[in-house]
């Protein structure tokens, strides 16, 4: 199985499963309002794996949680999250009544978390936690639920699944817990899986297994996936399309190969430049100088401008919008057409 499957690539015109429009999340803090997500737009096709990439504090996890309206007052979430479920009707999840939203949560859209050590309930057995979802969203009970739960554990690659149903989470290792969490989330056969850094807490070999598992399940269950990560290696391995976030905004969206081959945003450019390169001689890494911006006091113009190697006066005016710069490739960089080739020295003048 190849890591990136082109059959999953969406056609932008076909009705997307999820369509996010002008998503904003505002968090009141003692130091002023923190505008964590600022006008994010994206579409997610059926069967597509979208990678949401960014540094810590770029707003990627906040965006993901906003999709399911998990932010409680006083945090404000505005915009539209249009979800087109099985019956073809499109619902805006941000305005849906709480009772209808509950049938979408879990039933249509599931979520897995970063920390498998804390995301499983320690006082319920793994089997009870899977069967609870089966009962709630698939109406399965008793023996049928038990059978299906064992199947799900088997599907996620847990050995002797029937015996392990009666185990508690603390009897599982980290990688096994992540598998168990995936089994719980997928018990309801959702159409969309939201994965919040699902492999960050795992070591590299387990990480690889879990990512392969997610891709396999994507194919078997015909799901779409939104994968939040800060790891570009994970993105390259799993995603069809990438959305790069910085300072609460989308900076660039494109197919994964396109992003890695021809980044059209200075930030993506810097991110890729800062990766260790296995083929080259051992050179010092080239990190992006500075740190992520304070979302309470954003600079005027492009949020990345203060750290950007290619900054000009044009970047400091109005905040540049995300515009289509090539087929299926959008960028919010003023200088998207003037970025040098990736392999060129970043010190090269524009």
């Amino acid at each position, binding site marked *: 199985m190849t890591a990136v499957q082109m059959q999953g690539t969406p056609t932008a015109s076909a009705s997307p499963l999820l369509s996010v429009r002008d998503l904003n999340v505002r968090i009141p803090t003692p130091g002023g309002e923190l505008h964590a997500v600022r006008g994010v737009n994206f579409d997610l096709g059926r069967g597509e794996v979208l990678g949401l990439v960014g540094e810590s504090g770029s707003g990627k996890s906040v965006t993901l949680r906003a999709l*399911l309206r*998990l932010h409680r007052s006083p945090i404000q979430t505005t915009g539209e999250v249009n979800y087109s479920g099985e019956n073809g009707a499109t619902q805006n999840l941000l305005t849906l009544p709480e009772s209808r*939203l*509950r*049938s*979408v*949560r*879990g*039933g249509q859209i*599931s*979520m897995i*978390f970063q*920390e498998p*050590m*804390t*995301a*499983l*309930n*320690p*006082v*319920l057995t793994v089997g009870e936690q899977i069967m*609870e*979802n089966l009962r*709630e*969203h698939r109406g399965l009970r008793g023996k049928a639920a038990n059978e299906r739960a064992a199947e799900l554990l088997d599907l996620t690659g847990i*050995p*002797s699944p029937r*015996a*392990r149903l*009666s*185990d*508690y*989470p*603390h*009897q599982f290792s980290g990688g096994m817990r992540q598998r168990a*969490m995936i089994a*719980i*989330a997928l018990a*309801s056969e959702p159409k969309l899986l939201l994965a919040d850094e699902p492999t960050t807490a795992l070591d590299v070999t387990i990480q690889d297994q879990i990512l392969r598992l997610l891709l396999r399940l994507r194919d078997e269950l015909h799901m779409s996936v939104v994968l939040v990560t800060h790891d570009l290696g994970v993105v390259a391995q799993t995603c069809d399309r990438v959305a790069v976030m910085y300072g609460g905004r989308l900076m660039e969206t494109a197919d994964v190969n396109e992003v890695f081959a021809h980044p059209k945003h200075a930030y993506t450019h810097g991110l890729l430049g800062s990766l260790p390169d296995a083929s080259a001689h051992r050179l010092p890494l080239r990190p992006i100088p500075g740190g992520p911006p304070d979302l309470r006091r954003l600079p005027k113009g492009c949020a990345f401008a203060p750290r950007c190697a290619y900054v000009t006066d044009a970047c400091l005016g109005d905040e540049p919008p995300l515009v289509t710069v090539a087929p299926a490739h959008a960028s919010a960089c003023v200088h998207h057409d003037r970025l040098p080739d990736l392999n060129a020295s970043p010190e090269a003048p524009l």
Partner: protein
Amino acid sequence: MTATLPVQTVTAPAARRRTLKPTLVIGLLLLLLLVLAALFPRLFTPFSPTDFDYTAILKGPTGKHPFGTDNFGRDVLSRVVHGTRIDLQIAVLTTAFPFVFGTLLGAVTAFRGRWADAVVGRVADLVVVFPFLVLVIAIVAVLGPGLTNMYIAVSAVGWVSYWRLTRGEVLAQKRAEYAQAAQVLGYSPARVLLRHILPNAVTPAIVYLMTDMSLGILLGASLGYLGLGAQPPAPEWGVMVADGKNFMVTAWWISTFPGLALTLAGITFSLIGDGLADALRPRT
């Protein structure tokens, strides 16, 4: 590489039972003894707790009356054993309502928050500004002495501790990822709270329940001693201590043995509470 590895069957490790702490075992054995005494007092003594025997007044411990007799010739051992039923009943009934009510209220107010939490919090503040015993005595004084009124009085005051304990724990647990995960799975708030959060948050309340039971017995005995709880001739340990206080110098056994019984009951519940704190801690 074409060599194949032998297929290995992987078996899940057998669920390991946690070894119970010795304190819990001893505590449970003592509780068994107390429950036996409460249910089948005749196993321990042939005498009635209330029958007078004017031929054996204020007799010291003998083979026939191991704990001696009191000023009416009643067998002290028999009264202590029969008192177990009343005092265990006091332990359960002074704590059952505060535990259930306080725990559920704490869970709901912590989960819902906002004005309900604020209102209940102020009521709780109002209750705790008065010393516990003084408040209970005041309520009993208004309602009149007797066990039923004592239960009402203790319940009106005792829920606050459980409310505080559970509220704090639920506040912490509802931020845990598994609670979010349950919400994300589309479960109703009631289910998220009662099935997922509360079992993880109730341990401190259960441990405190054990402490509170021994405190409840002592409180019942105190009120009995003061004449506000169980009424004579009921063989309640506090009442018996009060009965014997005038004879402390000449007939020490009348007060001493019920006092020792109180101590034993207190130790029993303390040992169980200590053991449960360890046994109920959720593993991660």
